[in-house]
């Protein structure tokens, strides 16, 4: 399992860096879609064989994370006629450096946690923490509503990778529930983004600043 899974996880980490470093929103969405495909491949890799359950979850993952959600976000992008993330709270190079630091710390933290015999030496836990951290970074330091949604997706992807350590005993029901909730969440966020862009003629969340102390 590790022989296939670990290279996939390394690619996942590289995509994290790509997402932190790019200013083009379309590239960001593509990065998020690529992570969806990687997760689907990981599901199969971790199951060890192509079972019906693994195939279903992998297909649902690709359908949602690589097709439905990216196309929704791309449409929102086109409607709002924006292309780039301008003026992030932290610049792109510093956020890349922070991402690198976070990934390093994830590896260190994961080493302090005792792993089950089948996961010793695997990258699953550090990659999960690092991806979730990337999501946080995107959420906290970017101003466009779409980037924040992509950040949330990356956070969810990190959680998803952690879930992969548990595939043997997680009932299918819960995994489907999680995926379903995710798609509904993005759907609701999409509706709100549309309202934001109609009301403020922009999807820049710095305009959402009338409510404060």
């Amino acid at each position, binding site marked *: 399992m590790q022989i296939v899974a670990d290279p996939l996880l390394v690619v996942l980490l590289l995509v994290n860096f790509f997402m932190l470093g790019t200013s083009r929103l379309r590239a960001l969405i593509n990065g998020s879609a690529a992570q969806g495909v990687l997760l689907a491949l990981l599901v199969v890799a971790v199951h060890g064989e192509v079972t019906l359950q693994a195939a279903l979850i992998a297909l649902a993952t690709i359908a949602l994370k690589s097709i439905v959600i990216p196309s929704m976000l791309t449409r929102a992008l086109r409607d709002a006629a924006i292309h780039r993330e301008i003026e992030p709270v932290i610049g792109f190079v510093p956020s890349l450096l922070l991402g690198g630091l976070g990934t390093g710390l994830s590896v260190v933290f994961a080493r302090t946690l005792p792993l089950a015999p089948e996961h010793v030496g695997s990258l699953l836990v550090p990659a999960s923490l690092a991806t979730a951290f990337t999501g946080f970074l995107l*959420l906290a330091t970017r101003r466009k509503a779409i980037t924040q949604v992509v950040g949330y997706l990356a956070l969810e992807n990190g959680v998803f990778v952690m879930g992969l350590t548990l595939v043997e*005993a997680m009932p299918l029901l*819960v995994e489907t*529930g999680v995926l379903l909730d995710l798609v509904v969440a993005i759907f609701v*966020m999409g509706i709100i983004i549309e309202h934001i862009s109609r009301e403020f003629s922009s999807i820049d969340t710095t305009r959402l600043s009338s409510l404060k102390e």
Partner: protein
Amino acid sequence: MALALVIVPLAFAAAAAAMPWQKWRPWLLPACGAVHLAMTIAALGRPEVSAIGGWLKLDDLGRLVLALVSVLFFACSLYAPGYLALRAERSNRVFVPCLLFFLAMNSLIVEAQHLGLMWVAIEATTLASAPLIHYNHHARSIEATWKYLLIGSVGIALALFGTFFLAYAALRAGLGTSLFFPDLVREAPRLSRPWLHSAFVLLFVGYGTKMGLAPMHTWKPDAYGEAPGIVGTLLAGALTSCAFLALLRFFQIVSAAGEAAFARQLMIGIGLLSMAVGGVFMARQRDYKRMLAYSSVEHMGILVLGVGIGGLGVFGALLHLVNNAITKGVLFLSAGNIHRAYGSKSTEDVRGALRRLPFSGALFLAGFFAATGSPPFAPFLSEFTIVRAAMTSGHAIVGGLFLFMLAIVFIGMGGAVLAVVQGEPPAEGPSGYHDRLGTIAPILLLMAIVLFLGVYVPAPLVALVQNAATFVEVKP
């Protein structure tokens, strides 16, 4: 019965979504509220309520929270037709089904014995409440909804992370990855400690965000400030109570593992911080609906503080859970009426509510006294119980700080509330709202409960709270 508590509100929600008559749709709310309350009373009378092979089960903590959610929803559902009749210009085709769906998911959270299922239900409440907060469709409500969705979703994602960590703690211990709550409590002593600690921290932050504990409370003033009063009531009374129940589930697992001291320290610290943040921000508040949100932050702090103190404190916290939910109903609904009449939420524009709206103004004032723990109202009893628990269990400093914060809150909240109710009302605004039976009777009902519980706590409620407290305080 266990299944019906979830299915029946869902069926009502579907009916409301399908119903073409704007005028009659709101009446589905009291109908469903009454049926749900009747089912809850029937379920509380039975010794064992479970369904789907143990996935749903009403345990001792669940009984208490279900009872309070059901009563609160019933009162809100009585208020809804009167309120929505005033808002006839706006479609309620999304609003009413979302409220009913919200009730169904609350029942599901309370009954779920599988932590994954509970997570799904809590996430579903976040999504159901987004359109409710967005009901007014103006720029500020969009901003509030966006912050609520984003912060809430991040919190929920962290909670899922924590749930997976917990499952891994079981896997590492060679227990398989069951996420059934009773299994985890039973096997808790064998769980892997580093994973268990990390899991609890993640879950505390995640579900604490949902509860609105400081410093994860930033969505709360915006959401409560912009949402209609009825939505504020259900968020501050029902949803936060369900999130607290989720937190207690994990507290139980950690206690059963013999690591309660670790969890208690965290709870006392965050509890005091939440009270302080609530108090400080209430003092400078010019928006009386946002002020109620900070009051909610403060009361969430009191709840986790009580559990952190332990022993009698757990009993006090669970009693306070009930008292807080009902009191919040009085405050949010009466504040909603005042907002409607004056068309402003600012304490600079709103004066003389006692004169213009004798009922809403008086109820708002009484609700303020109740929420700040003045006798003879119910929150006084539960807050007093928590102070006593702190003083008698060697937490004298915590108890002292608790009293100090209550004083700050009283002064801070009092300034804003008195500014609203006293004085000469300005010239009549355009809304022409006056107190009427439909928007006052439900608040009076809630206020009567707050007063009654402050004077006399009936034996069945004592038993309910006592059982829940014993259930929560598992010994390793």
